[in-house]
């Protein structure tokens, strides 16, 4: 087993508390017919576990002790096209569901998965994962804020990148259905440098390489069929339910039809030209606003755009494959947008001013079917991934 570890000299201490997600109270789900097909999971865009979420799409995921029927269904897992792999708050998985560590015999594998606003720290566990009627058998998932002794304290290399995010606000987990089959890929198989995977013991954790088979895996890539990508389908309107469809062109219910295909560069990005300026750009269900830079727009103190009346704007998306697609959008004042449980926690015209890149967050998805093509997979209709198509 190629499983070299290296000690890196760091500075500063460890620390970084764990913020245990709250157990999910019942949040009234909007009434809508649940999709019944095996390859369609129902998305709800509601207040999440604490009632405070907005523009966050959630699904339910069932995890089982591998090869058994000892399972737990976890609701309010965020659908995230910006990452790959399943991350569950350890506190949401009952102790009766015993998920073995995914490391080689006797080695405890840990992971520090970085987001912009901080990190998700925890162990890597093996689980059977079922979403709608699709199953991924014995895949590595991340158990975030695992309280078992080897993982109780994140290593300083991890906590030095920011705050402890757990699995983020208002959710019990993050379901990464992005372009990649694994959450790190080859960068983590040849060097411990990315400091994403760790070998842990009672005396601490040290950065390690991890073979692809032990990296947290995009469950879609591990399905027996319908494994070449997904579609996110969200209607306009409130309250909101939608569909996470598995597979592209593999069933009668996932035929893409006439869509524009935007392949991505090797960093998973496209280009968006806005106001004549080109920006590195991405499309992301894990962002709850449209984030872009326009110094001519009025901003509120909270960093959101707050025009006095709705503004009609547009951006031109361009792919390395030469395809372009102009997208019209509206930005309105957050003060005019309806928030809170009574509105279904959806805001279609929400723009954020924080941006190095142009991020088409969840409002982009409203009223569209957006296809995400998996890297290394293909479909007769849309060709090889990775790509966006809509």
């Amino acid at each position, binding site marked *: 087993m190629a499983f070299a570890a290296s000690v890196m000299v760091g*500075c500063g201490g460890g620390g970084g508390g764990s913020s245990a997600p709250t157990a999910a109270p019942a949040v009234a789900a909007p009434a809508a017919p649940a999709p019944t097909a095996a390859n369609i999971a129902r998305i709800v865009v509601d207040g999440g576990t604490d009632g405070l979420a907005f523009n966050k799409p959630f699904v339910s995921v069932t995890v089982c002790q591998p090869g058994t029927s000892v399972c737990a269904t976890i609701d309010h897992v965020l659908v995230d096209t*910006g990452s790959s792999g399943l991350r569950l708050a350890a506190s949401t998985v009952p102790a009766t569901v015993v998920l073995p560590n995914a490391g080689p015999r006797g080695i405890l594998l840990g992971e520090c998965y970085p987001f912009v606003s901080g990190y998700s720290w925890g162990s890597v566990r093996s689980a059977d994962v079922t979403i709608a009627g699709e199953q991924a058998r014995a895949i590595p998932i991340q158990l975030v804020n695992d309280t078992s002794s080897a993982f109780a304290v994140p290593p300083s290399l991890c906590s030095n990148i920011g705050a402890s995010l757990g699995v983020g606000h208002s959710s019990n987990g993050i379901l990464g259905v992005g372009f990649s089959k694994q*959450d790190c890929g080859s960068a983590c198989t040849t060097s411990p440098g990315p400091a994403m995977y760790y070998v842990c013991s009672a005396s601490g954790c040290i950065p390690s390489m991890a073979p692809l088979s032990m990296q947290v895996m995009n469950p879609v890539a591990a399905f027996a069929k319908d494994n070449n990508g997904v579609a996110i389908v969200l209607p306009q309107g409130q309250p909101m339910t939608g569909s996470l469809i598995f597979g592209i062109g593999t069933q009668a219910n996932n035929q893409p039809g006439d869509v524009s295909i935007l392949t991505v560069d090797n960093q*998973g990005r496209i280009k968006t030209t806005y106001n004549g300026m080109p920006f*590195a750009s991405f499309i*992301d269900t894990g*962002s709850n606003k449209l*984030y872009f830079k326009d110094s001519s727009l009025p901003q509120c103190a*909270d960093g959101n755009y707050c025009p006095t009346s709705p503004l009609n704007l547009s951006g031109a998306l361009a792919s390395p494959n030469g395809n372009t697609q102009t997208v019209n959008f509206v930005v309105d004042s957050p003060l005019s947008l309806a928030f809170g449980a009574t509105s279904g926690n959806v805001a279609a015209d929400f723009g954020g001013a924080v*941006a190095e890149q142009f991020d088409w967050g969840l409002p982009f998805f409203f009223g569209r079917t957006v296809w995400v093509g998996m890297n290394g997979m293909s479909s007769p209709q849309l060709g090889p991934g990775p790509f966006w198509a809509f």
Partner: protein
Amino acid sequence: MKISIVVIALALIAAQPCWAALGGSPSSSGSAVSSVAASTASGASYTDLQSQLPNGTVVHEYANSGGTVFAVAWSGPMQPDVKALLGPWFDTYTKRATQRQSADLSHLAVAGADLVVVSTGRVGAFQGRAWVISLLPEGFNTKEMK
């Protein structure tokens, strides 16, 4: 004699305190791969120290003529050691990062009285900038940071 000096030097490196980049000396001291002298539109000179972290991410630290870092920027597949880069401002940063109004998985904005941070991206393509307003040399344009 020579050997003991080497040993002492190694021990010092291992025990190196976290030098605050912002407001202090560059954290990349000794590992910078390039150092570019520049000056602002107002003629204030500064130095752009560029280094690459073991995780592949490139860091720029901008130091004034006195050697004090007033701004940092990063770009690359993984997050940098933000604690080392922000130094005494790291706690302010992490507090903002846990507020739902100012941060989500792909974005973080800090616009405090003195610290400004703009950070965007995902694994594979992180990008961020941070600076201390009171330390900026006259005429420095934060938009021109790498």
